[in-house]
Each structure stands twice: as structure tokens, then as C-alpha cells.
């Protein structure tokens, strides 16, 4: 009986140990993807003078097609009005985080990955 119990308890540990590094790596890669998309989006928004629909669609497209995010869960907010040159444009990308521990018995940290950045507009008008 005690041996069976010990084996079962070890099983939990072993499963957690097997999956944590790769899941942690996945989380890292997701953050990297969101950072890259946000940076590119900001530069394009800066040239246009606001966060236009094309910029948003392009960001969503990249996240969905290249990085395998689910389209429904991506939330992109930002400055949608024309902004004068030297005024700040802001973009925020919110996506859900993937779990780090495969068994949901530890603290997984925050549920969402939120990245916000600002850049000055280059728009002349």
C-alpha cells in the first residue's frame, strides 16, 4: 500500500518535471512573439500617424499565421485617432498566457500577457 502511494506521488512530480521546461520555453517564445509584433506595429503606426485597421490586421495576421495564436483571444488596443507629429501613439497587446505547469496544482502566475508601448507619431498633416 505505502509503495503504491509513493509511486503515485512520484508520478505527479515526474510528470511536472517532464513538462515544465518545455512549457516554460513556450511561454518565453510567446512573449518574444508578442514583443516582436508590437515593435513592428508601433513603427508602422508611427508612420501612418495612428493605429489604423491595416496595422491591427497585420499584427493579428502575424500572431495567428506565424505564431499560432488563436484569433479570438488576441486583444489589441491603442490610439485610433490621427496623432500630430511628435505626439505619442500607444499600442497594447493582450493575449492569454499558456500554463507553465502541466498539472494545475501550482501557482501559474498571471493569466494574461499584456505588453504596452508608446512611440511618437511621424505624421505630418
Amino acid at each position, binding site marked *: 500500500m505505502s509503495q503504491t502511494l509513493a509511486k503515485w506521488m512520484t508520478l505527479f512530480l515526474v510528470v511536472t518535471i517532464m513538462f515544465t521546461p518545455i512549457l*516554460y520555453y513556450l511561454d518565453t517564445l510567446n512573449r*518574444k512573439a508578442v*514583443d516582436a509584433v508590437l515593435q513592428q506595429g508601433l513603427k508602422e503606426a*508611427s508612420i501612418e500617424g495612428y493605429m489604423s485597421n491595416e496595422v491591427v490586421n497585420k499584427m493579428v495576421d502575424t500572431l495567428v499565421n506565424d505564431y499560432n495564436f488563436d484569433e479570438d483571444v488576441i486583444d489589441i488596443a491603442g490610439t485610433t485617432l490621427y496623432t500630430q*507629429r*511628435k505626439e505619442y501613439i500607444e499600442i497594447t497587446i493582450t493575449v492569454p498566457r499558456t500554463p507553465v505547469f502541466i498539472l494545475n496544482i501550482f501557482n501559474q502566475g498571471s493569466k494574461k500577457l499584456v505588453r504596452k508601448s*508608446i512611440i*511618437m507619431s511621424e505624421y505630418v498633416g
Partner: protein
Amino acid sequence: MGTVLRTFFLVLIWAQIMVMQTNYDSDETATRRLHNGLELAVHDATLQIIPAELTEGKIVFDQDVAEQVLMQTFKENLLLDSTLQPENESFFNNQIKIVYLEYIDHSTRPTGYPFNYYNADYNLLEIVNGPSIVAIVETNSPRHFLGDPPILRQAVVYEYKGPL
């Protein structure tokens, strides 16, 4: 007993690998954010030119304003306070220093673009096509676990873009 020992060593090795992984991940993420943040900051700084010089066809940076704007954007994007010390919610743990800032414009270099910009102190080589700002920042990596945190240093050369 055998199972206990095996489990113990497995957990120990796992913990060490995870420490290594999270440390490397902190280095990588911090490097990327440092570079991205600086790029946006220098981009904003390059927009600050003196309009009077522009009417004569010269692009000359307004250095005081440019530096203010650079600091402002850098602080906002990386969540730092006025001395570039990280705030609580910032990803960074250590103060970030702007170690080098150079303005290449028509007042310091009227002609001769493009040219190979070379900074011997930081071993920075870049083709500069027009008036640009060069900025280099450094900080210690915000590692969660002990270990010698490496110095992360990032350089950005950003060119003036806009109406001539």
C-alpha cells in the same frame, strides 16, 4: 528508500536546469526589451530637429529636447523613474545607464553621407545614410536566481526620417 533517493536527485537536477533556463531567459528577454525600448526612444529623439535650420535644407537636432524626449520614451516603455532606476512593476532590477549618446547631423558633419560609422570604444560599426542619433545603454541582467549577472549592452543608430 531507492525511490525516495531517485526522486530526490531527479528534483535536484530539474531544479538546477530550471535555474539555468530562467536565468538565460531573463538575459534574453532583458536584452530584447532593452534594445526595443532604446530603438523607440531614439526614434522619438530623431524627430526633434530645429525648424529654422530645416528651412535652409539642414537637419540639425535640437539636442536638449532630443535628450529629454529620449529619456521620456525610454522611461515610459521600460517603466523606469527619472534616474532610470526601475520601478516595481518593471522587468529590470538594476539601474540602466546611458553610456554613450552622439548626434550626427549637418552641423557636425555637413556632407559625406553615407559613410561607415565606427565607434572604437564600443566596437560599433554601422552604415549611416543621413543625420542620425547613436545611443548605447547598459545594465546588469535582472536574473531571478544567484549567479553572476552579465552586463547587457545595446546600441542603436537611428536615422532621421521625415520631410526634408
